[in-house]
């Protein structure tokens, strides 16, 4: 980065040349116009005031409604599987002892 004094010299030389050259004057003006157009359009863009309250409301909803848990379904499945396993173990014994009695 050149020091300010050198930059001033460069600008003076550029301005001096542009004073006599229509194309270069148009180019310098065009650079300034491009900057101005973008500064005007985008210079003060910020989040809308509704953003933060909307986020807080969404988070409050998430805290109130806990995510659905799979735990009851899993426990239910384990319970029924245990019942069926026990039945599979006991029924043959019952049938055998019933056959012996008869």
């Amino acid at each position: 980065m050149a020091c300010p004094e050198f930059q001033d010299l460069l600008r003076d030389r550029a301005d001096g040349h542009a004073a006599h050259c229509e194309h270069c004057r148009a180019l310098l003006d065009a650079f300034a116009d491009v900057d101005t157009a973008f500064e005007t359009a985008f210079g003060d863009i910020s989040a809308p005031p509704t953003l933060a309250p909307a986020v807080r409301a969404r988070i409050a909803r998430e805290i109130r409604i806990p995510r659905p848990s799979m735990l009851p379904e899993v426990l239910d499945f384990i319970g029924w599987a245990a019942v069926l396993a026990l039945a599979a173990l006991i029924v043959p014994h019952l049938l055998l002892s019933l056959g012996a009695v008869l």
Partner: protein
Amino acid sequence: MAEDFERIVREYQDRIFRLAFSMLGNRAAAEETAQDVLVRAWRGLPGFRAESSLSTWIYAITRNVCLTALRRHEISAYSLEEPAAQRAAERHAFAGWAVADSPDAAALLERLPARYRQVVALFYMQEKSYDEVASMLGMPIGTVKTYLFRARQSLAEELAQERVPKGEA
């Protein structure tokens, strides 16, 4: 955690919104996306281990959420090489850019290749900070400077040529 999150909202809401706006080119979509980003940050904050800086983490979430939004809504990617019909839809989307009664900026952006537009818009939104733009886009600072230089130069040359056509000087 609530205090940490409030600090994130205070410090980053503008930058998140600007980054989203620069990627999506539409205010409504940018606001919706910024909400999603902050909610994700809130969910992820307990697991954030500071291996990267907070800003890097938040900007990465923002870029990912924006890319998902672009895919979901099929928002055009601002390419000058797009077919005419898509360019027309793109112009409609760019109406969102025309803030502060400056339709010229939208028209100027339309002349630029897609990869330059976001950098240019974000640069002017972020008070011309190369560092900040590079950090927000996850891009080397040299690339940001090159894109900006080429974008401004090509626009200025086009404008100058329109004002003083060759051979008239």
